[in-house]
């Protein structure tokens, strides 16, 4: 955008009259900026064994790629060239080349990988192995398993601090958030949270970790330094039974808006939370069993996977309105968005 404006001004500076070159440059820069702002949304469909690709501008599915069985957590490489996919029933992580849309190779992951995160450098994947009570560290370049860290029962969520020093893993059955030092790969603290913790997310400044508890119906906010819970958010939706409110996916804004978004599963709502007061400001209606969330690159939109209704809802974050729900495959689960 900025580039386009600069070029236009540059043209005007030369001459008041529009000339062909100027128009051409403008046209090209419009095309260029249009391309630059375009982004793709990748959605893993757990039951269909596919990845749906949604165009971020038209909000339509432009492609569907068949991959390994039961794809769940998906992560883009730092350069955006490949997509790492936890194909849970294949017991490995598959790597999808986003140019050719072909699975080029797979990475060892340990059995039943579900969620994973890259370290900030983009060289290592931290993978939760639900069935084996392990977190596996995989070197993506050498395609090797570096180490396996034993954790609580049924590990699920993985969060990496922005500085890469901390890895937080949640274990569903032990009801804990394990703080793992990424240098020593040892658990340094276990924080007990409410029943069945799912997703763990660090704030942009790394000072807090937000952990959602699906059955407990809460989100715990843990202070990274003291490893203590400093606040617990609970939810209440008019007309819905409390047990149907099951927080899962978490996205914390880093654009200065200081807002957090929590997917509430069967409640079919996304909660908008003020990160200073921890108050819920609004509930937005999305599809059934909303699971994971992802921001658009400029954080003006939020995408949600709605497992039961089989679609992706698009939220306009400025207007705080759900603007569209896009049909994808059966049981959409993971989300990743290219810049």
């Amino acid at each position, binding site marked *: 955008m900025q580039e386009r404006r600069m070029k236009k001004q540059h043209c005007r500076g030369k001459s008041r009259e529009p000339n062909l070159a100027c128009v051409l440059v403008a046209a090209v820069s419009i095309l260029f900026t249009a391309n630059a702002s375009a982004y793709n949304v990748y959605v893993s469909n757990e039951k269909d064994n596919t990845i749906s690709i949604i165009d971020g501008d038209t909000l339509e599915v432009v492609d569907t790629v068949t991959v390994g069985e039961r794809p769940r957590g998906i992560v883009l490489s730092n350069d955006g060239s490949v997509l790492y996919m936890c194909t849970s029933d294949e017991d490995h992580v598959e790597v999808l080349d986003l140019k050719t849309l072909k699975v080029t190779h797979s990475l060892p992951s340990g059995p039943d990988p579900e969620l994973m995160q890259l370290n900030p450098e983009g060289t290592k994947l931290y993978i939760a192995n639900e069935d084996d009570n392990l977190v596996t560290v995989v070197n993506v370049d050498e395609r090797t398993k570096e180490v396996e860290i034993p954790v609580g029962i049924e590990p699920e969520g993985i969060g990496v601090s922005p500085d890469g020093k901390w890895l937080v893993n949640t274990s569903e059955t032990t009801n804990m958030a394990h703080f793992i030092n990424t240098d020593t790969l040892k658990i340094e603290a276990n924080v007990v949270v409410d029943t069945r913790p799912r997703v763990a997310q660090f704030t942009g400044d790394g000072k807090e970790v937000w952990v959602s508890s699906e059955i407990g119906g809460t989100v715990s906010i843990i202070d990274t330094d003291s490893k203590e819970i400093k606040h617990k958010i609970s939810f209440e939706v008019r007309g819905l039974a409390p047990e149907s409110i099951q927080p899962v996916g978490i996205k914390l804004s880093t654009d200065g808006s200081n807002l957090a978004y929590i997917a509430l599963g069967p409640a079919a709502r996304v909660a908008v939370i003020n990160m200073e007061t921890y108050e819920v400001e609004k509930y937005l209606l999305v*599809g059934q069993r909303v699971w994971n969330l992802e921001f658009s690159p400029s954080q003006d939109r939020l995408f949600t996977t709605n497992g039961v209704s089989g679609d992706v*809802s698009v939220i306009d974050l400025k207007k705080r309105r*759900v603007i569209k*729900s896009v049909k994808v495959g059966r049981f959409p689960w993971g989300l990743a968005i290219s810049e």
Partner: protein
Amino acid sequence: MNLKHARSCFKGILIRESLRFLNQRARFFAALVRPLVWLFIFAAGFRSVLGVSIIPPYQTYVLYEEYITPGLLGMIMLFNGMQSSLSMVYDREMGSMRLLLVSPLPRWFLLLCKLLSGVAVALLQVYVFLLIAWFWEVRPPVSGYFMVIPALILSGLMLGALGLMLSSFVTQLENFAGVMNFVIFPMFFASSALYPLWRVRDSSELLYWVANLNPFTHAVEFVRFALYSEINWQAGLITLLCTLFFSAVAIWGYDPLRGFLPRKGGPAT
């Protein structure tokens, strides 16, 4: 009929209806409370009912409040249309209806003016309702607030003409309670105002067909799409055809050759 006279006549009727409307604030609030009760109480109770399927014109899941809002606009038009056209005949307005009908203008034009001013009053109610609904987080796009006007006018005319038609033929509908029971309630409930047709079909195929044959369903759908800046041509066309049909029959029904107000046993002589 010259144009100047026609305009003057319409102006006069419109002013009269507006003045009466302003003078009868109780009536206005009653008319407003009805849809609001549905919005605040009924819809709140059924909040979680919807959201399983997305149907046009909606782009995403909507709360029940949002779904029934166009239906409630239809309800305002329905009550208003029935009330104004039946009051033309049965209420104490009967005297003033005679006054109107002996005016030196074609009868169809007088009836049309009357219907249109009834619709104008209903439009006022609709916008007050939409304003309140806005605070209740029912917020269609801004353009929808404008696009819905023609849809509301046409629907209002259709329902008003239907009321006129009924009043000219069904002499048993002597009070409003009868109209509520036999016209307003069936039309409102057997339509897409409260439930989408696919949902109606899930429970009863018969009801689904009845709702499809119900002109009110099409009026509501026409209004629903317009409120989201879309045009449902099919619903619009059906509404238009019904309007023309009801109007033609109503005008025929009020043809002096057939007599004005044919009632049981004839008029007081």
